């Protein structure tokens, strides 16, 4: 009798914990759904389009002649094929590094100036790069990811990116793989995509950039990588660095075939 009571109580407690978990997950799913109705990323997209078309820099020209890989001035669908090798720079570039390139080469802005504010912070420190990225990526919404590794330098970046993904270091021995190496894992209540698998990578990669409600800012993929390394207890990943492009290449290519769905809205 006593034993039965105890067992029943234990079961009830367990069932309570389990149902609390389920309702938490469902509740958060509904929350995320409700956010989809209006995405402030559109404010960044609009500002970015304005920046793209405005004559700027010492040369007083717009970015409308910038070649994002599909030819000068073609924005539609360009992001779905990045990163890629650009012969004029003899380098594999992601969108952010290519935008900096165009600001320097076309508009005559110094590289230091073009790169100085990659991640905005509030009204007084708005980032032009984030706005431009929001605009350019929005023009690939619905386009299937189609990143090439045909050029040897693209293949090299892809393979190095894979190595960096598995690189463990720092005081905590963390690497990308620590949090993103298995299915159905979470940190606290946050689901973690499995980036060693195609499905997980497709879902994660195609929903960046994103408006982060926790920050009230639009964040780019460069930011995503930068902040992951901060939490990995690494030094700071430099904006537009080769390692950042290699990792982006590794993930973007593995997302091939999935329709791009950004800028998204996230927690």
């Amino acid at each position, binding site marked *: 009798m006593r034993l039965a009571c105890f067992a029943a109580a234990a079961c009830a407690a367990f069932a309570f914990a389990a149902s609390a978990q389920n309702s938490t997950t469902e509740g958060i799913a509904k929350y995320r759904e409700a956010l989809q109705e209006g995405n402030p990323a559109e404010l960044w997209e609009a500002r970015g389009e304005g920046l793209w078309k405005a004559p700027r820099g010492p040369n007083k020209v717009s970015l409308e002649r910038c070649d994002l890989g599909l030819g000068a001035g073609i924005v539609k669908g360009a992001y779905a094929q990045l990163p890629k090798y650009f012969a004029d720079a003899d380098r594999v570039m992601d969108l952010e590094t290519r935008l900096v390139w165009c600001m320097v080469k076309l508009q005559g802005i110094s590289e230091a100036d073009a790169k100085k504010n990659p991640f905005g912070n509030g009204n007084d420190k708005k980032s032009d790069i984030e706005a431009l990225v929001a605009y350019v990526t929005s023009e690939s919404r619905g386009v299937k990811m189609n990143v090439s590794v045909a050029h040897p330098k693209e293949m090299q970046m892809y393979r190095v990116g894979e190595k960096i993904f598995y690189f463990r270091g720092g005081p905590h*021995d963390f690497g990308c793989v620590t949090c993103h190496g298995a299915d159905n894992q979470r940190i606290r209540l946050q689901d973690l995509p499995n980036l060693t698998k195609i499905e997980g990578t497709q879902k994660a990669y195609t929903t960046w950039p994103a408006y982060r409600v926790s920050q009230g800012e639009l964040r780019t993929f460069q930011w995503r990588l930068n902040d992951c390394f901060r939490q990995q207890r690494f030094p*700071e990943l430099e904006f537009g660095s080769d390692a950042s492009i290699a990792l982006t290449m590794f993930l973007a290519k593995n997302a091939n075939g999935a329709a791009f769905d950004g800028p998204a809205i996230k927690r």
Partner: protein
Amino acid sequence: MQARMIARILLFSALFAAVLVGCAIAPSDERISADASAMIKNSFKARGQAGLDRLDQDDTQRLCSQAAGKTPPRDVAERIEKQNLATIKYPADGKLLGDWKNGEKIAQDGRGKQYSDDPKGPVGGNCYACHQLAPQELAYGTIGPSLYRFGKLRGYTVETQRYAYGKIFNSEAFAACSTMPRFGHNGILSEQQIKDVTALLMDPASPVNQ
């Protein structure tokens, strides 16, 4: 005879060329690893308390990176575990259990060691990021196994206390290439903090064991 010889030479040449071309298209895995290490060194800058020395891998980190998220070969795993086991320092006073209430605070606290953290500020263990512990906390992660009723299930023995303390001190001593940080070995948590977290797992009065 002559024709045969020429044919053989041609064949060898073709094979040799194919190998050469193959090299051009696909550098070896070692080469790519070396490129990755060099690229990492060039892509980060020191900030706050996080210096570039954090990119220098020790033997364990290097071997586990090579394992690429999988369990390393048995001989490698044994080498890693042996090396790490030798680093574990048990408390000189022989007491393994501290205060579970402090342990709970440490388990909840995710601060410490990030370049954005105050270097003089508190450092936590962030156990709940990956593990279920006390059932009251619903916001727990699942990267590590559930530790709910850790002591109750395994028995409140000194051996289990030593295992828990040792695992927190250096997880790689017990499971090569574990995702869990080596809290003692890498100086993330102090001896007293590890005792407190051990108490959270092993004290019969801890909420973990209710």
